[in-house]
């Protein structure tokens, strides 16, 4: 199946994004930011439709909107999460805006489905290059701030007196997270970024006891989901997104069950 260019593109992007999600996801779950990623992806949806309206690629519109949202979120006190009413308001407003841009850009309705639910087999070579470059940049930035990031996200109170620049670390991570949200949306869609950004890392928490182990498991779980999902989608002609979300959910349940079992024994 890898003789087709669209499958090659899909496989490369799936691999790159799984590695990225494995790393970023560990920090997202450590700080309980998964709902923020969901809100960001809804903002990303309106960004993608805005991109279509402007005649850009949806990915570029999405990157613009999510990064702006990260900058806005960074100004909010990290110790006081946004109230759920504020999050509902932001989500509703941007989803509405997305519907508007889609309508005035007169894009076909398949665009909306692609943005919301992903279209990994529709990814072009140019997208592959762009996504890979951004992913490598992101991973480099994470490497550069790895130790303070780890301290600040796994032990925020201890880190208060232990590291400098805690505020800027937080902001840099939010930007990395927003870029990842946009890129993950290319695979599983804006509505399902959870499937790769949170689920693998959450499952990893049952097995990993060090940050390195968490990252390792999380990458492995993400890769399992995207590779298997891609292959199953190819063989059955059913949506890849469906397989990825199902596999990640099953992995989570297995990891959860095994840790419960271990506790019981």
């Amino acid at each position, binding site marked *: 199946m890898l003789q087709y260019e669209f499958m090659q593109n899909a496989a490369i992007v799936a691999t790159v994004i799984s590695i990225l999600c494995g790393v970023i996801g560990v920090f997202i779950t450590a700080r309980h930011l998964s709902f923020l990623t969901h809100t960001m992806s809804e903002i990303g949806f309106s960004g993608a439709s805005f991109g279509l309206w402007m005649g850009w690629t949806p990915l570029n519109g999405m990157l613009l909107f999510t990064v702006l949202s990260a900058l806005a979120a960074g100004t909010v006190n990290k110790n006081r999460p946004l109230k759920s009413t504020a999050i509902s308001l932001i989500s509703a407003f941007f989803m509405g805006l997305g519907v508007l841009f889609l309508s005035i850009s007169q894009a076909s309705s398949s665009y909306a489905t692609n943005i919301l639910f992903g279209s990994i087999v529709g990814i072009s070579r140019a997208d592959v290059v762009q996504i890979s470059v951004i992913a490598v940049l992101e991973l480099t930035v994470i490497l550069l701030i790895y130790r303070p990031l780890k*301290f600040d996200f796994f*032990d925020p*109170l*201890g880190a208060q007196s*232990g590291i400098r620049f805690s505020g800027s670390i937080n902001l840099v991570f939010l930007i990395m997270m927003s870029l990842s949200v946009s890129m993950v949306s290319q695979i599983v869609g804006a509505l399902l970024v959870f499937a790769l950004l949170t689920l693998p890392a959450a499952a990893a928490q049952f097995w990993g*006891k*060090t940050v390195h182990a968490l990252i390792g498991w999380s990458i492995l779980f993400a890769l399992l989901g995207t590779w298997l999902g891609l292959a199953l989608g190819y063989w059955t002609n059913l949506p890849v997104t469906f397989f990825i979300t199902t596999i990640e959910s099953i992995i989570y349940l297995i990891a959860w069950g095994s840790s419960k079992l271990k506790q019981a024994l």
Partner: protein
Amino acid sequence: MSTKVLIEAQNLLVQFNQQVIFRDLSFTIDTGDFFCIVGPNGSGKTTLLRVILDELTPTAGKIQRYLTNDQIGYIPQFRNIETDFPLSAQAFVELKLQQRFWPWLSYGERQQVHQALGAAHLIAKKNLRLGQMSGGEKQRAYLAQAIVNQPQLLILDEPTASLDVAAKYEVMNVVQSLNRQGTTVIFITHDPQLLEKYGTKTLQLGDKDKNATI
């Protein structure tokens, strides 16, 4: 061991919006002290710690610190470690190592972690998840993290407040043996027994007009 002055405060005054937290506070902390700060809730104990840590500038008065923040190990009062916190005690202690850049630890850093866990009597439990540990074990893990860089001064903000008697003395014995090996300790507590048993100097906060001067 010859003593020298680590921290010297003269006539400290801190007030927020006209409300005086404490005034005329003078004290000296020397190397090797087990310096206890006592006083009721709201008497400014944690505020004083923030002044000592250089996080807050006093409204008036002078404080001289003869050491840098890197030489201070601080254990904050509230640490929210939930039961599903995934990291082991050892991985938790490692978080504090910030001198080097690479994600992996050097040989020297691994030694430091091992020593800190040993001092906190946690070697046998180092691979257990912190979230699953008892209150006393958690507190000793915080202690191990605070001393991993071998600080000259250790600051503890009510570390035994929520512990049962056995766990409390286990934590205190670790602190005491560090103190005997030369680490200066600043200790905030409500507990008069601990004060009596371990303290070498006491600073009483609470009477806003007349603070004890040491």
